[in-house]
């Protein structure tokens, strides 16, 4: 919150200096700016009112950091008091804080229904989806941090580049060289096979698993649970054919592929889509061993 206060002080001092050389364009700009400031103040007042009227309020401790802003170079926690209503999620509370107190509070979100995978956060010491986590289920005050083991870009936003690189490394798309014979024939999957890969298809690329993994934290080359799960989804898909499966196994059985998994189950614990990640990794290990073990 203090960031915004200093910003506004700077703005007012520069606008005074420029007042003499005011053009029509500048006048319009300054009126708009004043209107925005008034709107911000109004929002803050409204928040005060709502807090007064609310039965329950919840305190958020939110991680703040921005290497490009003078007052935010040192990481710190800001506290926001938000009126609580039944069914309120962590994301709802964050949006309330952003809209009413500090518009510079930065976090990713999009669909708000646990499908887009944008808002994986470290809430009360655990990786969770902000939109899926009920405030009522948490201990208060609620502490919200960016995902651990990733570089923080700003506030709650982390750099996802490494995660996406790992996902891409396993070629996360359907590919085959076995086509059905008829010209208009479809590539049909058996119900059993669909059931087998069903859970693995639910991944939303939120990176909660990658962030929770002890091994991925120390070893940057490790593919990580999400990528291996992606490899599982296609390696186990019978429509891809035997040759393609060999190719997929070649990727995951490298030194920093499946073998690094120590079956700690932290990925399975935090996965917001309940994918049995560790089991999938173990199954791929077995596949790889069976594939290579020859007694003759």
């Amino acid at each position, binding site marked *: 919150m203090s960031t915004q206060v200093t910003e506004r002080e700077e703005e007012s001092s520069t606008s005074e200096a420029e007042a003499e050389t005011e053009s029509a364009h500048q006048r319009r700009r300054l009126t708009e700016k004043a209107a925005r400031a008034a709107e911000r103040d109004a929002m803050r007042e409204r928040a005060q009112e709502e807090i007064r009227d609310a039965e329950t309020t919840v305190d958020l401790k939110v991680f703040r950091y921005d290497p490009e802003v003078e007052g935010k170079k040192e990481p710190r926690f800001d506290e926001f008091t938000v009126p609580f209503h039944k069914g309120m999620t962590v994301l709802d509370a964050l949006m309330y804080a952003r809209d009413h107190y500090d518009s510079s509070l930065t976090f990713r979100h999009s669909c708000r229904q646990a499908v887009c995978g944008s808002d994986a956060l470290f809430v009360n010491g655990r990786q969770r989806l902000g939109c899926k986590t009920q405030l009522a289920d948490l201990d208060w005050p609620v502490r919200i941090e960016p995902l651990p083991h990733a570089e923080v870009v700003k506030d709650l936003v982390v750099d996802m580049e490494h995660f996406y690189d790992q996902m891409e490394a396993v070629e996360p798309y359907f590919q085959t060289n076995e086509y059905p014979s008829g010209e208009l024939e479809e590539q049909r999957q058996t119900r059993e096979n669909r059931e087998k890969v069903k859970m693995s298809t639910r991944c939303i690329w939120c990176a909660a698993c990658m962030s929770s993994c002890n091994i991925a934290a120390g*070893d940057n080359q490790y593919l990580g649970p999400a990528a291996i799960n992606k490899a599982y989804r296609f390696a186990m898909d019978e429509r891809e054919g035997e040759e393609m499966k060999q190719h997929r196994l070649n990727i995951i059985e490298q030194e920093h592929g499946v073998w690094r998994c120590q079956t700690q189950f932290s990925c399975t614990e935090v996965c917001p889509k309940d994918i049995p990640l560790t089991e999938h990794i173990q199954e791929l290990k077995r596949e*790889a061993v069976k594939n*290579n073990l020859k007694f003759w």
Partner: protein
Amino acid sequence: MADYYSSFEPKGTRWLLQRLTAAFLVVVLAFHFMLLHFVNHAAEITFQGTAIRMSQLGYFLTMVLFLVTATFHGVNGVYNALVNQGLSGTGKTAVKYGLALAGLLLIVQGVRVALAMTTII
């Protein structure tokens, strides 16, 4: 992954052996504790008693196998834990051969001790 070169043999052999030795060690370790901590208490262990036990062929072979599997399991475990922590490059090579040498020395010395305690050979 296309330009990735490594001396690592992607066959999962070491992973499988780690599992198999673990299963073996659980059983033999239970047997060891049973025999040498509960049936014969630690205070009652004598060199003569050891020599008698070690002179039985089955027991002798089990103990030698115990030594070899435990050494592999331990050394391989430490190596993998370090790789998990991000050990790479020269350090990794040094650790790999250092641990392999240490394991080898342990087995050689262990076998020497075993032979000293037996009358079979």
